């Protein structure tokens, strides 16, 4: 795959309060928040508060940057339901939003790929990264498929969004999916991961 021109390359960085205007530009857009729990923001101050109260304390929340502009955000959350008595969760979920003017360029796909690489490297106990897309959101389903996620099935009435139950398509990217992309590094990482898991008390079957 050709590398994009440097000014069009997708990079991720941490948010600062100064990004409030950029965040407001998509968080106030009904098209972007259509499949999110939150209603569109009406005031810049709501975006600023969201950065301070939710984004900055979040364990993994990044701004999606293209050519120096902040065009969206991506976040990964470890699932607390999989924590067991001090053992860290083996499962996390990823969510993302891109400003409407930047849709259709593969930006979300690249951001998901960068985020997946980063969290599997940072969290050696992670075995499954999952994501869900509304059944009526084929664009988001395509992002995940192009990023190498596997479509697993439709989960009926999985969440209530703005008062209505929604069927969601579940996708996942698991540890063994990564080996397909980079065999040599994947083997070294797998050894490191096995050692980390044994240290944490798991039985590792290779």
């Amino acid at each position, binding site marked *: 795959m050709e590398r994009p021109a440097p000014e069009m390359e997708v990079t991720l960085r941490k948010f600062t309060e100064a990004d409030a205007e950029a965040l407001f530009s998509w968080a106030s857009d009904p098209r972007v928040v259509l499949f999110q729990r939150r209603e569109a923001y009406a005031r810049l101050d709501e975006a600023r508060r969201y950065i301070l109260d939710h984004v900055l304390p979040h364990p993994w929340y990044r701004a999606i940057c293209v050519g120096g502009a902040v065009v969206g955000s991506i976040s990964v959350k470890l699932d*607390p*339901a*999989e924590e*067991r008595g001090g*053992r860290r969760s*083996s*499962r996390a979920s990823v969510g993302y939003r891109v400003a409407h003017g930047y849709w259709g360029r593969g930006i979300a796909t690249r951001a998901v790929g960068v985020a997946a690489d980063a969290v599997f490297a940072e969290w050696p106990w992670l*075995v*499954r990264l*999952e994501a869900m897309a509304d059944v009526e959101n084929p664009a988001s389903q395509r992002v995940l498929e192009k990023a190498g996620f*596997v479509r*697993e*099935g*439709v*989960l*009926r*009435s*999985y*969440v*209530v969004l703005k008062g209505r*139950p929604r069927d969601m398509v*579940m996708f*996942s990217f*698991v*540890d*063994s999916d990564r080996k397909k992309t980079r065999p040599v590094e994947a083997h070294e990482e797998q050894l490191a991961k096995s050692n980390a898991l044994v240290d944490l*008390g*798991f*039985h590792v*079957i290779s």
Partner: protein
Amino acid sequence: MEHSTGQESHPPAKKPAVEVTLRRFTLAYVDAMMAWASDPLAAAPCRWEPYASTEPLLAYLRDAVLPHPWFRAICLAGEDRPVGAISVSPTEDGCRAELGYVLARAHWGKGVATAAVRRALETVFGDVEGLLRVEALVDVPNVASQRVLEKAGFTREAVLRSYCVLKGRVKDMVIHSFISTDTVMQQD
């Protein structure tokens, strides 16, 4: 089409329907619970290890079962002594809860689990406000448990790969669901 030698010209009789009641737990059930709580085979697909004595089981009953929003003892019709347990546990979304059950081995293979799941589905939506979806996750090789859910009216939705770590092993899990508007299947 060949007929089998002699014998039936009609399909085998259905198993007589098992009747169960689901009762709220009391501490007095602890001794009956030991029948499945101490059994490594019954415990194998569950998150907990078999119990060696009643003291920790009593603590579990007191601290986890009694305060639980929906946890029931499975009793055979006309009997007071529980033969298993069934629960519907909240998740991070109020519309969705997870079913789990365990049965003493002496009562496996008789349709007791299926009857208990049916009974739970008939009552839980009325008991839990806002509940729309009951889901159940079963280890991929555990076909018997998947059959129980399907016979009760659950829909098999997907295999969730590497979904959880159960007793040190990463598991692929089959997820099933029953939505409040689905119909409980009454016949096998």
